[in-house]
């Protein structure tokens, strides 16, 4: 009675596929039950948009004349990694432009880094290349400067080693001073709690055991099309889980790739995080093929059922103590305040729920109109709980 991805793709090509977002599927499953919903719905679309530091882009600059083996290079004064081949470089999202004061005047503003550079390239802006070399017989050129745009380079791929964290910490501050973290500004004495997940819309929380997402899954990436190519760095599936199988701690991650030339700065935005550094906000949407009842049951998860750990970022996180102060649901987080140790704490998201919704809707539209087919994973991502049948 299950469906295959090939069958779903046939339906997409005929324009008959039933595609709903991860928000819409909640009501459908509540009303019709998992069995009927699994028969009727073919694809559930998810979305997330938030800062994802482990991001970057490979760019092949094309050859200068005379040829050059680039040893050091800067784009808009942001140092890029050159130790790959003559004119292949990698832009890291968190690399800072030279001469940035960093945190010398605390908290630093980090106005321009790799994330901003990637956004500028995707926006079609001209950027300044400066490169130096030691010169070889085959690559005699020793210095190269030019203005270039994304259209001028041969290849440019976004390649992000770790994105779309499946669940994340809720950050608070137990100390008596303001702290500036990658989770935003945290006021003293539990003054606020910041979280960063699209909850019920978030890709990996809707397929908690990686039953459909694997190597080769085609995704919405930065406004264009991309692929899951591996599990992400720090992928950890041996974590506590709720009754529906969703992890209650930071868990799985994915590594993704896509052609930068087809992307859009609306979904690939340079971020400056006060006192912490530069980053890139990345928009990702993953379609979940409804293969069977189990898949749709997991995809119908609600914010009320998704739990995140509250962690102190003044001592416990930086020192790596592993202490968790408590657990809260995404429904509580989204309501604007949580209760912790008898105190009401205002919450702020860092992941944009409205943009996550926009991404899930866009992906739904692409699939419904037949212009996006599902990728058939050649291998699923490692997941202890699935492999050992724990859940």
């Amino acid at each position, binding site marked *: 009675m299950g469906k295959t991805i090939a069958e779903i793709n046939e339906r997409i090509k005929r324009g008959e596929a039933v595609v709903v977002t991860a928000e819409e599927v909640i009501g459908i499953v509540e009303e019709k039950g998992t069995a009927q919903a699994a028969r009727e719905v073919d694809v559930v679309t998810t979305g997330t948009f938030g800062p994802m530091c482990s991001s970057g882009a490979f760019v092949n600059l094309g050859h200068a004349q005379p040829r050059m083996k680039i040893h050091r290079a800067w784009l808009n004064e942001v140092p890029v990694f050159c130790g790959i081949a003559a004119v292949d470089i990698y832009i890291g999202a968190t690399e800072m432009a030279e001469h940035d004061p960093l945190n010398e005047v605390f908290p630093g503003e980090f106005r321009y880094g790799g994330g901003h550079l990637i956004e500028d390239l995707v926006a079609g802006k001209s950027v300044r290349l400066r490169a130096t070399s030691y010169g070889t017989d085959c690559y005699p050129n020793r210095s190269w400067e030019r203005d270039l745009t994304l259209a001028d380079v041969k290849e440019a791929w976004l390649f992000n080693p770790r994105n779309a964290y499946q669940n994340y910490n809720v950050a608070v501050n137990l100390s008596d001073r303001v702290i500036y973290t990658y989770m935003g500004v945290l*006021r003293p004495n539990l003054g*606020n709690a910041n979280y960063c997940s699209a909850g019920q819309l978030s890709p990996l929380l809707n397929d908690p055991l990686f039953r459909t997402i694997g190597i080769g899954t085609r995704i919405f990436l930065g406004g264009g099309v991309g692929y899951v190519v591996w599990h992400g760095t720090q992928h950890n599936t041996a974590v506590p889980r709720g009754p529906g199988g969703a992890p209650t701690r930071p868990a799985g991650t994915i590594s993704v790739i896509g052609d930068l030339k087809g992307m859009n700065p609306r979904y690939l935005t340079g971020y400056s995080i006060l006192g912490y550094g530069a980053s890139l*906000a990345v928009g990702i949407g993953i379609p979940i093929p409804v293969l069977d009842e189990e898949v749709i049951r997991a995809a119908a998860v609600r914010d009320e059922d998704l739990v995140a750990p509250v962690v102190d970022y003044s001592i416990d996180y930086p020192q790596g103590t592993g202490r968790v102060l408590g657990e809260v649901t995404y429904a509580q987080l989204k309501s604007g305040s949580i209760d912790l140790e008898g105190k009401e704490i*205002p919450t702020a998201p*860092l992941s944009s729920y409205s943009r996550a919704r926009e991404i899930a809707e866009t992906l739904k539209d692409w699939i419904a109109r037949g212009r996006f087919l599902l990728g058939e994973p050649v291998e699923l991502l490692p997941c202890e709980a699935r492999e050992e049948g724990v859940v």
Partner: protein
Amino acid sequence: MVRHKVVLHFPHEQVDKPIVSKLVRDYNLDFNILKASITPREEGLLVLEITGEEADYDRGMEYIRGCGVSVQPLSQDIRRNEERCTHCGACLAVCPTDALSADRTTMEVRFDDEECVACELCVKVCPPRAMEIHY
């Protein structure tokens, strides 16, 4: 009664004159200082919330302008670049008034410039730098 938030720019030759206290004495206006600063070049900046009768307010502002002080409504000063705002919500943690607040249904972040007191806390906190100062 009217309530206006205004930004006053004082040229350096006026910085040390008691212009604002005249608003209270001669024009029956009340004020709250939201922000005050003098730049290194000795130009003064004062952000006030002024309350009083409409006619008094108009006459008071006329007097102030006559002293060479420029008067701007505050709403012009902190602006949100709507194109750049990603509705991430990072600003919600720092805004002391409810000028920045989340619509809990759409999870969009609203900016209400009427409530903004130009504290500028959001300006550096906003990750895509969508909150801009326009003095």
